[in-house]
């Protein structure tokens, strides 16, 4: 029997080794797997390479992981924000290496990893500082930059509902990086609001097929203070 449900976030992340590359879903708070990140902090893995659109906000989630000194390198498109003080401090202290990638190139490099693509040419960033040192090529009337896939050991993502095969459905803009990160990582862990019986998800609404997901943890949403 296939059963990808795991009882706790801690159990789902117990085998993350030091030095792992970890993709973390979310754009802002939408789709951010906050409880999985908390479990990763508690788990203690160090020297991580983290792939996320941003580099943490305020004091929770990815910012806390950085604040705890666990991240050696971050691959992202938009680290600097008004509340990215944990990133700013670690970066300025030289404790955190940054690979800055245009957002669409970041998404496509992640997608390429999951799709088995060896590399691709993109017009984005041609002629800019972010293409310096990279191979370029003129194809037809346009100039392109060669970009390589980003693979990960783990992907931590958040979806709305899952069945025990790991099929996932998302909610609104919380989908963002979830489907592509799920495919790009060796071990994808999804936290979901609700787990449902096999067959309860209409195959038409499954966005991430279970083949891309190894572990599912149900995290009941916090009840908001009135």
């Amino acid at each position: 029997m296939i059963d990808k449900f795991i009882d706790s976030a801690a159990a789902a992340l117990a085998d993350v080794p030091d030095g792992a590359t970890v993709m973390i879903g979310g754009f802002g708070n939408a789709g951010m797997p906050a409880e999985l990140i908390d479990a990763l902090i508690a788990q203690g893995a160090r020297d991580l390479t983290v792939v996320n659109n941003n580099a943490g906000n305020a004091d929770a989630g990815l910012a806390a992981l950085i604040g705890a000194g666990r991240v050696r390198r971050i691959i992202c498109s938009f680290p600097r924000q008004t509340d990215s003080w944990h990133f700013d401090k670690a970066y300025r202290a030289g404790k955190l290496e940054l690979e800055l990638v245009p957002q669409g190139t970041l998404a496509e490099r992640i997608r390429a990893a999951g799709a088995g693509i060896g590399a691709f040419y993109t017009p984005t960033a041609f002629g800019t500082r972010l293409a310096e040192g990279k191979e370029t090529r003129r194809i037809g009337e346009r100039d392109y930059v060669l970009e390589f896939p980003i693979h990960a050991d783990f992907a931590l993502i958040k979806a709305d509902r899952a069945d025990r095969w790991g099929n996932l459905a998302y909610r609104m803009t919380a989908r963002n990086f979830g489907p592509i990160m799920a495919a790009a990582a060796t071990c994808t862990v999804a936290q979901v609001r609700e787990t449902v019986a096999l067959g309860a998800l209409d195959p038409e609404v499954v966005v991430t097929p279970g083949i891309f997901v190894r572990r599912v943890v149900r995290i009941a949403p916090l009840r908001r203070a009135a």
Partner: protein
Amino acid sequence: MKKLDRNQIAARVARDIPDGATVNLGIGLPTLVANHLPKDREVVLHSENGILGLGPKPAAGAEDEDLIDAGKNPATALAGASYFHHADSFAMIRGGHIDICVLGAFQVSATGDIANWHTGEPDAIPAVGGAMDLAAGAKQVFVTMEHLTKDGRSKIVERCSYPLTGVRCVTRIYTDLAVIDVRPDGLHVVDIVEGLSFEELQRLSGVPLKRLATAA
């Protein structure tokens, strides 16, 4: 001369967005364009975090943490909207499916290069987001910015001194003084604010301008 304020610039951009267009609005002034779109035009707003058919901001109390725009602000989705993941969202941008994007800028060059992501200062922490994808991929790139820096220098320049976001991609520039088309044969002035002569605009601008035959 009557300089345009931010809302007036946004309203001027909105006038040029045709019925049926799919448009991505950048953060800051470009976001204001949404408030000025004529009611008789159906314009589909794309938000790169994963919505086509972005609606106005929600009423207080109706926010949903799963529904935000590219500026990470609470958002709504219109009837007809769709959600998609990031690779699809940037396929729309890079694949030339977005008709118009509106971006802010530090500088635009006479050949349509844009600099808007990095001041170039050594201790500045860079952040690029989707700006380079939009610059490279949208069919038309509109830029909104003040015509002059705080110390009076033209932001329209022969060559950008700030790090580039994209090369030869800007199609039209909207400033507080003028609307200027970027064409293969140079910069053509489309509109000038009331009370400013072409000669005076030319004197303030860092590069040669051409009078568009139809300009007022």
